[in-house]
């Protein structure tokens, strides 16, 4: 079995990144107004795009194992550190609502000409430096409550992988319905024409 290729070279990085950035920008994810609209419930694109992508990739990974294209355990599954990942998730959610980006979308934002994305990146470097400076006292929290290595939802629940994917698809379907209803009620989602004026009048 030769798949995955485990190619961590320059070309693989540039190709994967190019597609990533191209899709993010075309989804409107360079715009902090559109991104934070998710949390004002007026633009559900973040939920819709992320959930669809997770399900598509999870389905293809499952199929790859079914047909023997890739072996089980052949790709990276992060090990849970429950407390650190929960607290880190809370901090990134707060940072996203306040700053308008997450690390990946700040790259798309800067590529679209946004100076605020560059300032957000400077903030990330400072936050990383703070974490490193406080790593001593933080280490206990960082390593606490580790789950089994590479623990999946299948390991946790005992359910088969296809059923987990079906359940996620059901959640996504409900989220799409709810999101579209709220978007109509709250005047969203943001269109490109709302965000990019011919002459940018509040520049």
């Amino acid at each position: 079995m030769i798949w995955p290729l485990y190619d961590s070279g320059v070309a693989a990085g540039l190709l994967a990144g190019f597609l990533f950035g191209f899709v993010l920008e075309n989804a409107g994810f360079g715009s902090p107004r559109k991104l934070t609209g998710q949390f004002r419930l007026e633009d559900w694109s973040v939920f819709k795009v992320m959930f669809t992508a997770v399900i598509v990739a999870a389905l293809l990974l499952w199929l790859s194992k079914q047909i023997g294209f890739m072996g089980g355990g052949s790709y990276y599954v992060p090990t849970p550190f429950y407390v650190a990942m929960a607290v880190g998730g809370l901090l990134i959610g707060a940072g996203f609502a306040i700053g308008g980006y997450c690390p990946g979308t700040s790259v798309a934002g800067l590529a679209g000409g946004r100076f605020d994305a560059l300032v957000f990146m400077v903030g990330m470097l400072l936050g990383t430096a703070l974490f490193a400076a406080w790593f001593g006292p933080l280490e206990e929290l960082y390593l606490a409550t580790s789950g089994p290595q590479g623990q999946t939802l299948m390991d946790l629940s005992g359910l088969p992988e296809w059923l987990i994917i079906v359940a996620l698809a059901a959640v996504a379907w409900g989220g799409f319905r709810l999101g579209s209803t709220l978007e109509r009620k709250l005047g969203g989602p943001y269109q490109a024409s709302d965000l990019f004026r011919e002459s940018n009048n509040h520049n």
Partner: protein
Amino acid sequence: MSPRPFWSPFWAGIALGLALFLTFVLTGHGLGASGFFTRLTAEAGQWLAPELTAANRYLGDYVRGEPLQAWITWEVLGAFVGALVGALSGRRFRPQVERGPTSGVGSRLGLALVGGVLTGFGARLARGCTSGLGLSGGAALAVGGFVFLICFFAAGFLFSFIVRRYWQ
């Protein structure tokens, strides 16, 4: 020139899922972003405070080699070029400080900085960000990815109430 419309979230999601799957097939892992900023911090530390950085237990490992010579650097560089091509071809490239209609430049940049600090710190604690842990971990059906995503959305909604006047 008026901008071209965004892709619909459904088709953008399909495209992102295919790009993510291709990344798994090529590399054995998913997409990421925050790892690059960790490496950039190590690189900056090497210039600004070399002894402190080398002695640091978290960043020290990075500066024993060349911190920026890593797959994630090429990936983030590619993402920048991809997004630039998207913005130019979609006629959506605008040099600007993007902010809500009632928000000033100063307050917007201040909040961008604060948000960045929280995000940079949080990503190190969580060992990843929305892309590396949420998206890629989610696709691998990792428990950690979903713990992250649930907390990410919960805090996003909560803090959005506090700062919504800056965006609307």
